[in-house]
C-alpha cells in the first residue's frame, strides 16, 4: 500500500496543471481516488462529514450483488447441465462452467462502459463518474446468459451515453442506467430477449434437449398457458417447488433467480444504510397487495390471477429489481413519503404487467422505468403538500 502511495505521489505532479500529462488529469484522478480515500476537504458551505465517499458507497453495492452473482454463475452451469441431461455434476463444475460464461459479459460491460465514461470525463474536463461501477455489475446480472456480447456492448454504450451522459453524468440521470441497457436490448432485439430458449446457456443451438426439460421461465409458463398446467399451487409451478424459487435454481436472467442470495445483498445494503428500507419495503408491499387483489378478483378460469401473492415476490426479477434497481438513489424518489408512493406503485405495476399483459412475462423493468419517470412529479407534490400543511399550521398559531 505504502509503495503504491509513493508511486502515485511521485507521478502526481505530471498530471497537475502545467505538468506533462495535464490532459489526463481526470484519468489519473479516477485511479487515485479509486485506490485511496481522497483527502479533499470542504472549503465552504455546509460542513457535513461522512466517512464514505461515492466510490466507497458504490463498492458496498457491488459487494452486496456478489451473492446473486456467484449464485447466478452456479445456476448457469446447473441449468446447462440439466438441459443436456448431464445430472452427474458437482457444485464446482457447475460454478466454473457458469464463471467462464458470465465473466466475458462482465468484462465487456465494464470495458465498454468505463471506456465511454473516461472519454467523456476527458472531453469535458471533469472527474470520472463512479456511478458506472455499480451499473456495470448490474447489467450482466439482468440479461439472459445467451445474449451475444456485441449486443451487450451496444446496450451499455446506449445506456451510458443516452441514459446518463446526455443528462450530465452520474447523479443527473432520470432513469436507472442498467435498466436502460436492458430496455434497449428488449426493444431492439426482442427475439434474443424473450422466449423459452435464451435463458439457459446453449439451449438454442442444442440438437437434443433432455427429456422433460424446458427452458421457459416460471413466469413465461404462467403467461403462455395461463397456468393451465398448474393444478395445485402449493406444489409450485411446473417442475419447480417453492423451495426452488427461494434458492433460485430455475431458468432466468443471470442474477435474478435466487431470492435468498438477493436477500443477503438486501441485508448488506440495509445494514450499511445505503439503500432505503422504505423503498424496498413498499415495493414488496405493493407487489404483495396487488397479488392479493388479483386473488380476490380472480375468476375460476383465470389461474394466473389465482397465483398466490407471495409467488410474485420470489419469482423472476421482482426481488432483484426491488433490492438493487428501485433503490438506486439517483432515480428514486427523494422525499420520505414519496419513497413509499414510488415503491408501492412499482410493486403494483410490476404485478399488473405480469398478470394482465401476456406480451411481457416480466414487468419489473418496465414498472421501475415508468416510476423513475414519475419520480420528480411525486416529489413535487409531496413537497407542495408539506408546504401547505406548514402554512396552515403557521396561520392557526398566528
Amino acid at each position: 500500500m505504502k509503495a503504491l502511495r509513493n508511486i502515485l505521489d511521485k507521478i502526481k505532479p505530471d498530471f497537475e496543471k502545467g505538468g506533462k500529462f495535464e490532459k489526463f488529469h481526470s484519468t489519473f484522478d479516477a485511479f487515485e481516488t479509486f485506490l485511496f480515500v481522497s483527502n479533499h476537504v470542504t472549503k465552504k458551505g455546509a460542513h457535513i462529514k461522512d466517512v464514505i465517499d461515492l466510490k466507497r458507497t458504490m463498492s458496498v453495492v457491488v459487494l452486496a450483488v456478489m451473492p446473486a452473482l456467484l449464485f447466478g454463475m452456479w445456476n448457469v452451469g446447473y441449468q446447462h447441465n440439466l438441459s443436456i441431461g448431464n445430472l452427474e455434476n458437482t457444485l464446482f463444475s457447475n460454478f466454473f462452467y457458469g464463471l467462464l460464461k458470465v465473466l466475458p459479459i462482465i468484462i465487456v460491460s465494464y470495458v465498454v462502459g468505463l471506456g465511454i465514461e473516461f472519454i467523456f470525463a476527458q472531453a469535458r474536463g471533469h472527474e470520472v463518474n463512479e456511478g458506472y461501477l455499480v451499473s456495470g455489475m448490474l447489467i450482466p446480472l439482468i440479461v439472459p446468459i445467451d445474449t451475444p456480447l456485441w449486443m451487450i456492448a451496444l446496450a451499455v454504450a446506449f445506456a451510458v451515453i443516452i441514459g446518463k451522459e446526455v443528462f450530465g453524468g452520474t447523479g443527473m440521470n432520470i432513469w436507472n442506467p442498467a435498466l436502460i441497457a436492458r430496455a434497449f436490448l428488449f426493444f431492439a432485439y426482442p427475439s434474443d430477449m424473450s422466449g423459452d430458449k435464451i435463458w439457459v446457456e446453449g439451449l438454442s443451438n442444442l440438437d437434443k434437449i433432455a427429456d422433460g426439460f424446458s427452458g421457459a421461465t416460471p413466469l413465461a409458463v404462467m403467461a403462455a398457458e395461463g397456468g393451465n398446467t398448474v393444478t395445485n399451487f402449493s406444489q409450485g409451478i411446473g417442475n419447480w417447488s417453492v423451495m426452488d424459487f427461494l434458492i433460485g435454481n430455475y431458468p432466468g436472467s443471470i442474477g435474478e433467480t435466487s431470492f435468498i442470495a438477493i436477500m443477503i445483498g438486501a441485508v448488506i445494503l440495509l445494514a450499511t444504510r445505503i439503500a432505503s428500507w422504505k423503498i424496498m419495503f413498499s415495493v414488496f408491499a405493493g407487489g404483495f397487495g396487488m397479488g392479493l387483489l388479483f386473488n380476490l378478483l380472480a375468476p375460476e378460469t383465470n389461474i394466473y390471477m389465482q397465483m398466490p401473492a407471495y409467488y410474485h415476490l420470489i419469482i423472476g426479477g421482482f426481488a432483484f429489481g426491488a433490492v438493487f434497481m428501485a433503490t438506486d438513489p439517483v432515480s428514486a424518489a427523494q422525499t420520505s413519503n414519496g419513497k413509499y408512493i414510488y415503491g408501492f406503485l412499482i410493486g403494483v405495476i410490476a404485478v399488473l404487467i405480469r398478470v394482465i399483459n401476456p406480451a411481457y412475462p416480466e414487468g419489473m423493468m418496465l414498472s421501475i422505468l415508468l416510476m423513475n419517470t414519475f419520480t420528480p412529479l411525486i416529489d413535487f407534490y409531496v413537497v407542495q403538500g408539506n408546504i401547505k400543511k406548514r402554512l396552515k399550521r403557521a396561520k392557526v398559531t398566528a
Partner: protein
Amino acid sequence: MSELFSKKNIKLLTDPLNENNPITVQVLGVCSALAVTVKVEPAIVMGISVMVVTAFANLIISLLRNTIPDRIRIIVQLVVVAALVIIVDQILKAFAYDVSKQLSVFVGLIITNCIIMGRLEAFALGNKPWSSFLDGIGNGAGYGIILIIISILREIFGSGTLTLPGLGELRIIPTMFYEFGYKNNGLMILPPMALIVVGLIIWYQRAKNKGLMETK
C-alpha cells in the same frame, strides 16, 4: 437577375439548412419527422411535398398580404395551405401511389405542420413575394434534409437497406453479417428512437456550431 439572388436572398435559402433549421433549432414539425422516416423514400417524398407547400403558401400569402384583414388572416392561411395540400396529395396518388400509401395520413397532416404556419405568420405576411418564396424553399429543404438524415440512419440500422426513389431497395448491410450473428435493431423502427436520433443530430449540430449553444 443579380437582384433576385442577392446575398440577402441567398441567406434566406441557406439559413434554414443549418443555423435556423426548422427541426433542430426551432424544434417544429417533429411529429411528422418521427412518423415518416422508417424508410428513405417516403422521407424524401415527404420533404419535397412540404417544401412545395411551404414555398407556394408563402408566395400566395405574400401576394395577398396587403389585402388580408388582420382578424381573419389565420383562416385565409389555412384555406391556402389546405388547397395546396390537397393538390400535392392528389398528385402523389396519381404518380407515386405506393409512396402515397406508405405516407397515408401524413400528407394530409402537412396542413397542421407548424413549420408552414410559422413561416406564413413570421415571414410571408411581412415580406415581398420573391423572398417569401425563397424562404419557403429554404425551410422546406431544411426540414427535408433532417428527415433524410434521420431516415438514412433508421433504415440502415433498422432494416439493413436503403430505399431510394427509382432504385428500389438496396441492401447496405451485407447478408454475410447476418450469418455471423448480426441482427437488425428493432428499436430503430420504433418512433422513440427517431426522437433520440433527432436529439443526437441536435447534439452534433450544437457541438459544431457554438452560436447555437444556450448561455447559462
